[in-house]
């Protein structure tokens, strides 16, 4: 069943999402996202698509299924989806409740997703289920910090931001492990807050 509260939250943000993220965050993160996405290979699941700001960073000619919980976000993404030079399908879907068959994807990519998924370990377990054994998880995420004073700041920020959108203090690396993945690399992009995470589903 779709989480309608989360869906409504992102539907409300959809019309102004590009003006919030396109010129600042996405431009700043683009080199690292391009580096991560360049590893796309085989049958790929991507979440969360949002308004499709990540699509220009996708390598050409890939076979990608992209999902997002918000129909309004997917609606905004249509032009970018149509412009992708490869196979890209965008579907409205809750990560907690994906109808895909088990072990149906070679790779899963996430982009600033698990700060907002209400039950992150459950969501990551759902990704684990749809990945083939030996399949790889690639994440670009912002997380909480393990270090003073940033940890305290992220906890404080979460009080302010969780109602509007993402949590700022999640331990996503620990959540990936809790879901059963083997973490192979964590690359901190900014402090230990913005990072790429690579993990594998044991064969």
């Amino acid at each position, binding site marked *: 069943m779709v989480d309608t509260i989360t869906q409504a939250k992102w539907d409300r943000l959809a019309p102004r999402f590009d003006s919030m993220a396109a010129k600042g965050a996405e431009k700043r993160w683009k080199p690292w996202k391009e580096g991560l996405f360049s590893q796309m290979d085989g049958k790929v699941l991507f979440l969360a698509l949002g308004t499709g700001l990540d699509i220009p960073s996708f390598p050409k000619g890939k076979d990608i299924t992209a999902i997002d919980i918000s129909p309004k976000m997917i609606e905004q993404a249509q032009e970018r989806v149509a412009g992708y030079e490869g196979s890209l399908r965008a579907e409205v879907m809750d990560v907690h409740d994906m109808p895909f068959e088990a072990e149906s994807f070679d790779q899963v990519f996430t982009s600033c997703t698990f700060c907002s998924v209400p039950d992150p370990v459950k969501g990551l377990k759902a990704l684990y289920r749809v990945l083939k054994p030996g399949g790889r998880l690639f994440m670009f995420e912002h997380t909480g910090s393990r270090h003073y004073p940033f940890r305290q700041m992220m906890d404080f920020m979460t009080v302010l931001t969780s109602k509007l959108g993402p949590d700022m203090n999640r331990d996503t690396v620990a959540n990936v492990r809790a879901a059963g993945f083997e973490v192979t*690399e*964590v690359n901190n992009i900014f402090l230990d807050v913005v990072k790429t995470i690579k993990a594998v589903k044991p064969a």
Partner: protein
Amino acid sequence: MDHRLFYVVGDFIANLAIGVIVGLIAWAIISPSWNMWGAMFAMMALGMVLGLVLYFPVGIKLGAMEAMIPAMYTGMWSGMVVGMMSSMMEMPMRHAAEMGAACGIAEIIFIWVANTILRGVTRQPKAS
């Protein structure tokens, strides 16, 4: 630190400006009639919130966490230092602005140093 010139200069100017603005607000609110500790903690909290508010126009160009975290720390330190000083003595407005600017510059340098220490690969692959 981010080595792209736009972000180096942008982060520096943004934090300098946020430090000045929060410093001036703290100067306008706090007078020597305030208790020093009360002024310090009140302006620390208000400065952090003001830093978050001032992040929004800055973040449109400079990004999300890379702009938000320094902005909030600059707000916190500028509010705390200027608030404390204003509770202890009559201070000219120019001094409050200078102190706020110094807090902003110190804060962004601290973030650059911390980022240099923390960034990079922290776990090597176990599986191919």
